[in-house]
């Protein structure tokens, strides 16, 4: 599939240390035309346009962005906010990072259009604490935008007022959960809130708030300039539209961020990335980040979009594709993921606090060769108790890989149990950290 780069057109071939696209160059390449167009429209029409594009949230849940904007009350005495979720912390996910460090104005423009559409005059970009350089790049770009009159009291001389701030997190995965992020933004302990009420009604500082992922907002300028019709024509079907960034990592020749129309298959993606590392056979892959269910090689022809992956019990999530070759120990890989979730659980609700830790303990003992015959079923029962019972989605995120390991790769576990040790030589899929 020949793919036209949309989101990455100015980032093409960029390396991490390259300077970001400055405002002048961005404008010279048609930048901020989407914002100008939006400012010439009624805010409601902007929302309708985004709705018509079928743009779904790129953060993981895939909620239609335009519908989300439509939830913001029009008549209210309260201020409204846009909080851009740049707390990209899921293992294997690094697409927002590339967008921010190479082309920050694309994000600023997307944020500005969204703010205009919902009537927000303050936008926070909540960026994960580890993204120090990216936060500095954004701050520089925001300063540029203020100086050029793109932000401030009179956005592009339209009379619309918009302030934008970068807010740095302190390195907690849970602050990528939207209400956890709001708590953190307000200066509190970052832990998710009870929903409902949803942030569209009671969000940041108790006021109506839109929360969108970086990639989602980066799509918005293109929806405006090229039109909803163009956008909805890209992709698999009318429910899965637009360009999409895929982060491919693991056992692959050329890991990195690749842009495709949504719905690329793993085979196509692997082809672009040079195939499985060392020409080995594919054993399994994670299609959508650490919280997605593992799929076997037989699914490599499946379009990786929201609905096709949901049909086989996995999800597109953040489109972080992790490739595992034939030598990978899946028990170790999943134990590593469970350990991540146990480490990142905020600890307030019971199933997540206890379940994530228990999962990684049981997987750990299977991996060490100390597993018990009843352990696979224990994992299934345990994950059933975690699924849909927790306060936020983090417990379910842990359930994804753990349950899929038992359901799709049970023989792997049985091998460990029978051998009394791990049958695979140690080869880390993710780097071990302390």
């Amino acid at each position, binding site marked *: 599939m020949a793919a036209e780069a949309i989101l990455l057109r100015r980032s093409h071939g960029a390396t991490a240390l390259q300077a970001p696209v400055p405002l002048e160059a961005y404008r010279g390449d048609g930048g901020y035309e989407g914002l100008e167009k939006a400012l010439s429209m009624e805010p409601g029409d902007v929302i309708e346009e985004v709705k018509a594009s079928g743009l779904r949230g790129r953060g993981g849940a895939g909620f239609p962005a335009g519908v989300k904007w439509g939830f913001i009350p029009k008549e209210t005495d309260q201020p409204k906010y846009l909080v851009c979720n740049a707390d990209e912390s899921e293992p294997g996910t690094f697409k927002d990072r590339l967008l921010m460090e190479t082309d920050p104005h694309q994000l600023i423009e997307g944020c500005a259009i969204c703010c205009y559409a919902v009537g927000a005059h303050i936008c926070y970009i909540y960026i994960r604490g580890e993204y120090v350089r990216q936060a500095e790049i954004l701050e520089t770009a925001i300063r540029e935008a203020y100086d050029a009159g793109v932000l401030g009291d009179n956005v592009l001389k339209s009379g619309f007022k918009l302030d934008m701030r970068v807010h740095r997190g302190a390195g907690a995965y849970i602050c990528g959960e939207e209400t956890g992020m709001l708590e953190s933004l307000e200066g509190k302990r970052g832990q998710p809130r009870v929903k409902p009420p949803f942030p569209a009604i009671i969000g940041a500082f108790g006021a109506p708030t839109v929360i969108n992922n970086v990639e989602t907002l980066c799509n918005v300028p293109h929806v405006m300039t090229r039109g909803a019709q163009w956008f909805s024509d890209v992709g698999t079907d009318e429910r899965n539209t637009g360009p999409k960034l895929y982060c491919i990592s693991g056992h692959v020749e050329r890991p990195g961020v690749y842009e495709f129309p949504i719905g690329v298959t793993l085979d196509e993606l692997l082809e672009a990335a040079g195939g499985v590392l060392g020409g080995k056979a594919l054993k399994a892959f994670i299609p959508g980040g650490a919280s997605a269910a593992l799929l076997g090689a037989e699914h490599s022809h499946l379009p990786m979009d929201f609905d096709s992956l949901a049909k086989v019990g996995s999800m597109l999530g953040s489109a972080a594709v992790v490739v595992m070759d034939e030598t990978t120990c899946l028990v170790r890989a999943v134990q590593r993921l469970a350990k991540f979730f146990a*480490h990142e659980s905020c*600890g307030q609700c*019971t199933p997540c606090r*206890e379940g994530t830790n228990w999962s990684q303990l049981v997987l750990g003992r299977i991996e060490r060769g100390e597993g018990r015959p009843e352990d696979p079923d224990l994992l299934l029962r345990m994950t*059933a108790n975690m699924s849909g019972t927790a306060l936020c989605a983090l417990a379910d995120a842990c359930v994804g890989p753990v349950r899929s390991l038992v359901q799709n790769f049970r023989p792997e576990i049985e091998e460990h149990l029978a051998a009394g040790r791990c049958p695979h030589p140690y080869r880390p899929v993710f780097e071990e950290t302390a």
Partner: protein
Amino acid sequence: MSKNMVSVTIDGRTVEVEAGSNLVDASLKAGVQIPHYCYHPKLSVVGQCRMCLVKIEGMPNLQTGCTTQIMKDGMEVRIDDDEVRAAQEGMMEFLLINHPLDCPICDQAGECGLQDYSFKHGQAFSRFSYEDKRTYPGKERIPLGPNVVLNMNRCIQCTRCVRFTEEISGTGELGFFQRGSRAEIGVFPGNELDNPLSTCVVDICPVGALTSTQFRFAERVWYLDKKPSLCTGCDAGCNITLEHRRGKIQRYKPRANDEVNDHWMCDFGRTTFQAYDEPRLSTPKRRNGRGEIRTITWDEALTSIHHSLAHGAAMGTVGILARGAATTEEAYLLKLLADSLETPHRGGLREPGPERLIPTSNGGLVGSEITPNRRGAELAGLEAPSSAERTAKMLAGAVNGAHSALLLFDGGRAGLDNALRSPAALEGLRKAETIVVVGWATTELTEIADIVLPIATHAETEGTLVNSQNRIQKFERAFPPPAGVRTGVEALVDLLRKFRPDFAPKTVADVFGLMATELSALEDVSLTELPASGIQLPVRPQ
């Protein structure tokens, strides 16, 4: 005020509840209990223990009952349901995998949410291996403050205590630290849990993580007899449960009354029963001609008091003074006695004390007097002078002259007004020819008394008190007084009969009934019919 009522069906039983009620509260109306740990009716709703998951028709997932508000008619809820039971069982398993299960040495055993729900919703075996339990080394017994000890291993992270310090006491000493399964409760660095309400966090802790230094290891809770009572530490009148074993009080716990103290009481109030450990008066006594105190019988004592008071009334002055700890019924009998003696020297005593504040949803409850029933004494007809000077004047009037007699009804340890206990005041009192002291403990007053009558403490009798809101509340007798000791009402009724042989009332209820005929606010109310939450009396203009 008419409230917007909506109907909800819980396990097939339809009940009407106020719109906006949550499911945990509503289910109680339907006679079903939804298990919960983190939810508390007076704290903010966080929905984090996940114990109250229920099935709601039309909702895809199980929902937490505490966060589900009933806004309109027709919600259908299932609790008696396999899916709900599985969720409850799952949560119990999660909560117990890391719990030390040290019930045999845990103070909470017997009143523990984990124990109760384990029996009801849990399973009898563990699938968790013992060696993997998470522990908090070195955090098994950390004093959080002077009154509360934390055992982090037992904590289930419900954060009720944290929310209490944030939302009720307003002091915010406690926080939730760390993350995931290492999450823990603690005080912020450099801080101490030492607010005046700190022990309330022990009451609301559903498990044995927080224990009170006062009650720790004092008694297994299943040995305790519990009676509804009132705190007599000040005039706030907090509702309490008095818990004792064979007449030895072990603790006071606040008893919920939304009109008065919500679910709270102060740390000071919890210590007030310790006064009852003081040396008790056990028999009536009289000072003989040589100044020696000798034990006498009740009949001798009552005859002797009758004689002294009647003599004093005929030949000089007589004073009847009640401390504000007297129950309303006792104060009323004293008033009748004063009427019989036709003496104007009568009154209660007012003693200001430190202000004690209980933050409640009704705007707060304040106690500012040491004596718990000054208003009750006034209701009964024993006016308390408004200042110390007036009190002194009243006393001077009562002990004026050669044949004066004084009856001091001294409810407790603090005795009469502290001003009265000063050496100078005691000297002044000695001018009276006869001093009769009615009380339960040996005090400076009993040292100078000519006749002493031993009566019951408030734990050993029943009656009513009127608190700072002017709300009359009743308390029950927790256990009988020691042999040879009578209740204040019994003693005063017997004494009154010496003056008025036709006086019929015998019991506290009889006296209350007689008093109620005089008071329009209590018209047609008997002691047994007095509501548990009390009756609000009109507030008297000051």
